[in-house]
């Protein structure tokens, strides 16, 4: 049980590598990349070991259970029966340390390894490793190469910290850290303002969702307290408390809704999905790792981890009101709007971003209809083919379109120049579209069949429509990129003959001018000359294509893990403890055929439109309504307008102005008038009290004294007889006094 017991190494090693790269990376020969790759490689090995050992653990438990033996091993007991025969209770492996304790509240940091954690760890480390390798070539010569690798390591460590977390507080920490890394990496080329704007937008939008996470974490603590009388952040405890009957349903529902808000923010669901397309301003490896395979699935992971809360809070198991609940509805809406927006994008990365939004919608929808295994399975397969597609796009831009991502302007006809990229991209597309027998087919189909089985028929329709649209827009993307005439090269070929760096710099500047619209993510390449290849579109380096093939392999074969008859995914990875009574559906051949047909129809429609030129070409130029519809899509349903201009703008404008007015006129006036009052008081004091009052008294005294002196002076007549008179009078008075008083 080495790997299971030492699973805490998996997040630790990339964290250490982050520190090393940060401090020493610049001095290393490869700029810190070797440390990063070694660390993530080590984590990947450990994750594989963990996965294997977990699977063994489950198989042993099941075998022992099937034999009816009750030999004391780690947590074996007769568990509930699942729908598929005997399944023993297999406890997750938990190790933690208490880092803070006060008044009975214990805060721990630790690992909880069960199937979900193991499989997601595997995915994260694998994709991260491939991205590390890919970035060696892609980010070669970048202005902040070392910093990039440091951030990649930190991200890997944070994501793994989130995945292995055994308590909600640790999940929160990991969640925020990955948000931070996303911010750092999206804004990797922050010198260009659109990049830093995109980074801020991503961070702030997910932050809005994080309110929900914070509220949910706190509420889950109270859930546990209601259930057991003693609060805790432990995930197992939280899950058990959600199912407990001594907790009111309303509390669980609000907790679920709070967590749902977090999922909406982080996993790009409607209405907080607007940050994901803008996040494409970051380097392509970042987009592949963070915004396709791993970070955006953190929300889905949260949903899977704390599933009992959602199950009981949103009453997923018992669909009423025509089969709707908040989670499924949001997921469903996201599927459709993401797919619709992908149709009008000219930037290949944005197509993939909207596709990611749509697929995340599938995952959330799956969770919402009670298809837990399907959701996690889709997460698993989606990581591979989406990362494959993103890295393929990066390869295209790196070697085929002079670092541009604009399909319409700079790509086209690249199939003959970049065959490996083309085939891996095509495999990824087919997987995404859900064509049998690639991975996407199995996972998407499982979602649909479970939706129908659990009573959410409406979402089956949603899923099928989404599948059609997915196939269509991906085919469009493939066509615009790899087929047709090469649009990016002609006017540049003369300049390519000048083989000196100055022209290359001018070329880069030319490309910068070339991207007139929002795709301003051209890396500041310092030295491009050491590629040692010609200047037309060409196939990419092995460092770029290698990861592509690995991912394609998984895109092809990963789906078989949960194919009917094999179905290992469910058996191995569905939690056995503190879980809910999901009722997985059996494989439906009819639905499978229907979904494949619909996907093929989508491909066919695009093929007809683009290859054959059939159908309503240039519709938007002729039809005003079509134009309006396309405009709506191009403006992204005006959601950005709503958020930025209306909500933020009114806050910035009206409320901020109002607050500013209050500040200037009321608050400052308080101060001003206090100051004026003090001055006035001072003046008053000076003039009246000091000048007239005090000085008046003093002056008055002096005057009185002077006057008295003046008057008394008159006694000094200088006349002798007058003095004598006074004398005589005085004598007389004294005599009188003496006489009277004696």
């Amino acid at each position: 049980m080495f790997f299971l017991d030492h699973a805490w190494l998996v997040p630790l090693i990339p964290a250490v590598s982050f520190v090393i790269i940060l401090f020493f990376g610049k001095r290393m020969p490869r700029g810190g990349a070797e440390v990063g790759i070694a660390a993530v490689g080590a984590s990947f090995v450990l994750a594989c070991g963990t996965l294997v050992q977990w699977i063994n653990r489950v198989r042993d438990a099941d075998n022992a259970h099937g034999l009816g033996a009750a030999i004391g091993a780690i947590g074996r007991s007769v568990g509930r029966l699942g729908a598929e025969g005997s399944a023993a209770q297999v406890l997750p492996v938990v190790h933690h340390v208490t880092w803070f304790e006060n008044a009975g509240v214990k805060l721990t940091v630790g690992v909880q390894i069960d199937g979900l954690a193991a499989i997601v760890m595997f995915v994260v480390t694998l994709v991260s490793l491939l991205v590390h390798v890919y970035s060696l070539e892609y980010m070669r010569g970048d202005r902040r190469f070392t910093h990039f690798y440091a951030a990649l390591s930190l991200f890997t460590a944070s994501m793994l910290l989130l995945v292995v977390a055994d308590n909600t507080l640790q999940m929160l920490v990991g969640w925020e850290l990955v948000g931070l890394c996303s911010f750092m990496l999206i804004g990797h080329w922050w010198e260009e303002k659109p990049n830093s704007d995109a980074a801020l937008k991503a961070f702030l939008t997910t932050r809005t969702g994080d309110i929900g996470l914070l509220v949910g974490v706190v509420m889950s603590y109270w859930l546990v307290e209601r259930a057991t009388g003693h609060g805790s952040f432990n995930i197992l405890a939280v899950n058990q408390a959600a199912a407990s009957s001594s907790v009111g349903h309303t509390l669980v529902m609000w907790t679920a809704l709070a967590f749902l808000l977090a999922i909406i923010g982080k996993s790009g669901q409607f209405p907080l999905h607007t940050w994901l397309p803008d996040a494409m301003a970051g380097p392509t490896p970042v987009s592949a790792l963070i915004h396709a395979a791993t970070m955006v699935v953190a929300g889905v992971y949260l949903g899977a981890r704390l599933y009992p809360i959602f199950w009981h809070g949103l009453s997923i198991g018992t669909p009423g009101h025509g089969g709707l609940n908040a989670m499924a509805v949001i997921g469903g809406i996201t599927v459709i709007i993401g797919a619709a927006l992908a149709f009008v994008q000219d930037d290949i990365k944005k197509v993939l971003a909207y596709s990611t939004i749509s697929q995340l919608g599938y995952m959330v929808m799956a969770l919402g209809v009670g298809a837990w295994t399907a959701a996690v399975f889709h997460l698993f397969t989606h990581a591979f083919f989406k990362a494959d597609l993103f890295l393929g796009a990066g390869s295209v831009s790196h070697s085929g379109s002079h670092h541009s991502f604009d399909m319409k302007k700079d790509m086209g006809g690249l199939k003959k120049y970049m065959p490996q990229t083309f085939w891996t991209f095509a495999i990824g597309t087919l997987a995404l579209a859900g064509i049998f027998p690639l991975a996407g087919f199995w996972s998407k189909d499982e979602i649909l069949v479970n939706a129908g089985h659990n009573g959410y028929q409406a979402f089956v329709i949603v899923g099928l429509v989404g599948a059609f649209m997915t196939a269509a827009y991906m085919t469009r993307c493939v066509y615009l990129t790899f087929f047709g005439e090469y649009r990016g090269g002609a006017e540049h070929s003369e300049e390519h003959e000048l083989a000196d760096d100055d022209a290359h710099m001018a070329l880069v500047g030319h490309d910068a001018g070339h991207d007139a619209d929002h795709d301003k993510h051209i890396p500041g390449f310092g030295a491009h000359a050491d590629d040692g290849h010609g200047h037309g579109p060409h196939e990419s380096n092995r460092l770029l294509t290698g990861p592509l093939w690995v991912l394609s392999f998984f895109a092809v074969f990963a789906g078989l893990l949960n194919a009917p008859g094999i179905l290992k995914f469910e058996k191995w990875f569905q939690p056995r403890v503190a879980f809910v009574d999901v009722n997985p559906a059996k494989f439906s051949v009819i639905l499978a055929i229907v979904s494949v047909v619909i996907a093929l129809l989508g491909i066919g429609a695009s093929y007809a439109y683009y290859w054959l030129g059939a159908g309503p070409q240039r519709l938007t130029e002729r039809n005003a309504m079509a134009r309006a519809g396309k405009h709506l899509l191009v403006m992204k349903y005006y959601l950005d307008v709503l958020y930025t201009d209306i909500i933020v703008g009114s806050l910035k404008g009206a409320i901020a102005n109002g607050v500013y007015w209050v500040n200037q006129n009321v608050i400052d006036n308080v101060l001003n008038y206090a100051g004026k009052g003090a001055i006035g008081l001072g003046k008053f004091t000076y003039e009246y009290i000091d000048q007239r009052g005090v000085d008046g008294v003093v002056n008055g005294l002096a005057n009185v004294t002077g006057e008295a002196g003046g008057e008394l002076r008159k006694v000094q007549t200088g006349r002798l007889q007058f003095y004598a008179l006074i004398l005589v009078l005085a004598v007389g008075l004294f005599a009188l006094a003496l006489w009277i008083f004696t």
Partner: protein
Amino acid sequence: MVAENVFFGIIAAAMAISALGVVSTKNVVHAALYLVIVLAGGAAQFLLLGQEFVAWVQVLVYIGAVIVLFLFGIMLTRAPMHPGETLGNDLRWPAAAAALFLAAILGSLFVKTWHGQKLHLESPVRTSEITNAVFRVYIIPFEIVGVLLLGALIGAVVLARRD
């Protein structure tokens, strides 16, 4: 005893009128002469009281020397010897009031204290008694007065000399 009282009354009346004359006459020389009468009357009163020595000393010194001195002074300061000078300065009424006030006090004091006190004059005081007293008991004041006279003499000479 009636004779003494009569004499006393006559001399006292003369003195009073002369005193008033001293303070109110316009003629300076007349004032001096009035003063002579007052002083002489005083000497007579001394005799009536049986104090002979001082009576004759008063005549000798006061009338004989002091009045002469006054007359010299009047002469030397060319005081107007004829009427023309006003009766007094502007302090007349306050001065009169003050004087009357004092007189009232003194008078009532005397009357109250020595009402009915009689003087028993058995024998006049002999000169030898006085000299005995002066040269024995009061020798020191006598010497001092001598020095004082010397000082006054020298002072007067110093003050009045022409230089």
